[in-house]
């Protein structure tokens, strides 16, 4: 009797073909059903928007402008060049945005760290922010990966639990605000993704000699997986295309490594009060693997906690002689640098831990001159205690 054997094709030869219906329900249909019943109001994505494909093949609308920037605690507090770069990109590409004072944190960092909250409170915090965005006349654009992930969780709970909707409605009535939920929950890195060709057209630095590793944020693509952007041209549609597509659009090399799917080690509570864990995971599982397997010039990520953990964990590891020393920044900072943003006045790289100078030299940035320019402005501000750096100063 003859036995027929077949050899499966190599991974690089396989073609990803999506078959059948998505395995998940369409949250937009459910939102619109609730709106039709008068339970809540759905804020539509404003035009102009770009449609992109998400994990299960559905299309997601990403607005280009009229965006209400839902800022991130960790970015604004500890990595100010991150948020600044997002705003700078909007300004340079000519898209109208709003940077609100009537926004609170999503409070999810605290929730995942301590659980000193509950579903009702978390949903009300989300809806209050969304209602405020609607009242301000802009569409929410979420800066933090955890806010993005948590708001998707809140959406799941609101869609499926009438009791929770009743609770949120009572709270919003007390606050004298409407019960609003956006049609799409949009992360800023999705906006960067859809405008990456515009960024590339305005690129002034040559990144062709730069090798970057990408770290995707867990709360972007693992926590409620539905909304994350996928592209069959990248990783054969098997991993999210976010960040990597930008790196490639800017002509840098996106180098792969074996622990791409791993978390950064942030841990929420751990990064603040149990950092031995965060440091160990970030350096042993992420940075050292990248170093060994890809030896990149920089690591690019798209979330608050990931930039913080991957960057700040390297100092202590270096003291122990570990194989570390990779600069870490966000996709927004990387894109802004490519377009000629000032490394200190805009990207605020002096707030980062790992030495960025070798990277800047490879990018063709005169960091000594740039630091002198920053110091000149800082000195002026020091002499005048009420003055601030303006956007004009930042581009001077």
């Amino acid at each position, binding site marked *: 009797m003859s036995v027929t054997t077949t050899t499966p094709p190599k991974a690089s030869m396989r073609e990803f073909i999506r078959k059948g219906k998505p395995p998940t329900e369409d949250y937009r249909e459910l939102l619109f059903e609730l709106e039709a019943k008068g339970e809540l109001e759905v804020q539509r994505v404003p035009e102009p928007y770009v449609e992109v494909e998400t994990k299960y093949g559905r299309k997601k609308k990403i607005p280009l402008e009229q965006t209400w920037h839902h800022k991130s605690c960790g970015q604004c507090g500890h990595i100010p060049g991150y948020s600044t770069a997002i705003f700078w990109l909007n300004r340079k590409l000519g898209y109208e945005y709003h940077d609100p004072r009537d926004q609170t944190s999503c409070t999810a960092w605290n929730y995942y760290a301590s659980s000193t909250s509950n579903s009702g409170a978390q949903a009300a915090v989300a809806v209050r922010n969304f209602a405020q965005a609607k009242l301000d006349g802009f569409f929410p654009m979420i800066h933090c990966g955890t806010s993005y992930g948590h708001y998707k969780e809140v959406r*799941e709970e609101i869609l499926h639990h009438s009791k929770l909707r009743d609770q949120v409605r009572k709270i919003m009535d007390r606050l004298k605000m409407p019960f609003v939920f956006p049609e799409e929950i949009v992360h800023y890195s999705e906006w960067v993704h859809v405008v990456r060709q515009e960024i590339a057209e305005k690129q002034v630095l040559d990144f062709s000699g730069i090798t970057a590793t990408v770290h995707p944020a867990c709360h972007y693509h693992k926590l409620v997986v539905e909304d994350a952007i996928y592209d069959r041209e990248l990783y054969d549609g098997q991993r999210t295309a976010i960040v990597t597509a930008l790196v490639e659009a800017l002509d840098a090399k996106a180098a792969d490594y074996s622990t791409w799917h791993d978390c950064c080690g942030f841990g929420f509570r751990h990064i603040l009060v149990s950092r031995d864990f965060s440091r160990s995971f970030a350096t042993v599982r992420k940075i050292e693997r990248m170093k060994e397997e890809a030896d990149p010039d920089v690591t690019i990520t798209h979330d608050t906690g990931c930039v913080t953990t991957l960057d700040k964990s390297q100092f202590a590891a270096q003291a122990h002689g570990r194989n570390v020393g990779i600069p870490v920044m966000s996709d927004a900072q990387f894109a802004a640098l490519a377009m000629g943003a000032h490394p200190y006045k805009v990207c605020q790289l002096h707030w980062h831990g790992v030495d960025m100078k070798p990277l800047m030299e490879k990018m063709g940035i005169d960091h000594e001159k740039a630091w002198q320019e920053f110091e000149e402005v800082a000195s002026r501000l020091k002499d005048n205690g009420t003055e601030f750096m303006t956007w004009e100063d930042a581009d001077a």
Partner: protein
Amino acid sequence: MSIYKDAKYQDVPYEKKQKLFQEVKEDMRWESVMYGCYECGICVAACPSARFYDFSPRVFAQVMGREDIDTFYELLNDSVWDCSQCFSCTRCPRQNNPGAIITIMREVAVNHGLSSAKKALQAYSRIIYKIMSTGTQVAPDMLQPDFFPDWGPDVKDVSENLDVWRRAVPPETMHTTELAWDVSEKTRLELYMIWKLTGNLEMIENIDEGIFMILEEVMEELLEEHGYDIDDFENVLED
């Protein structure tokens, strides 16, 4: 009585353990986070905490599925706080979400003021105060060498130049040192009203009475200044 000879917390009445277990299962999210476990271990392979702690998301799924009340109580006290809440475990082929099971368990631990929860959150409670009173979780002035000695010399540089370096950031909302960004007073009050209306302050009281008292005093003074009646904010979740 536990089936394990070396089981911990044998002095805690079974009825108490069962009550807490039931609270987890009665949470509205329970039905969408636990479907049954193959014991395949994919969640453990993906889990960062499993690499550095005696911690396993698979054990949480198994114990909850088996309704092993004694081991549940051990997990609730001994390893629930090791989880990173990254949700890498959602790679589960049965669509279990061990990270979310743990979120619910932590809420139950906090609601009952378990001493293990108090201990786990001891150093963290000032962060709770920051987020609940200001609406931002971390602030630039937290970057102190004493608090982050392992983050290297740049923390000292930031701390020494904080006022000038914050004013040297272009967005106007970020010229702050005590908050991550400038949250309006009206918005901070709205956030506090949400905490009042959802019983969150009682949760804080269970974990850290000192922080609760400061928070209540500071925020309620602010509410009164703005003409709100504090007694008018009953817990709407209890209706």
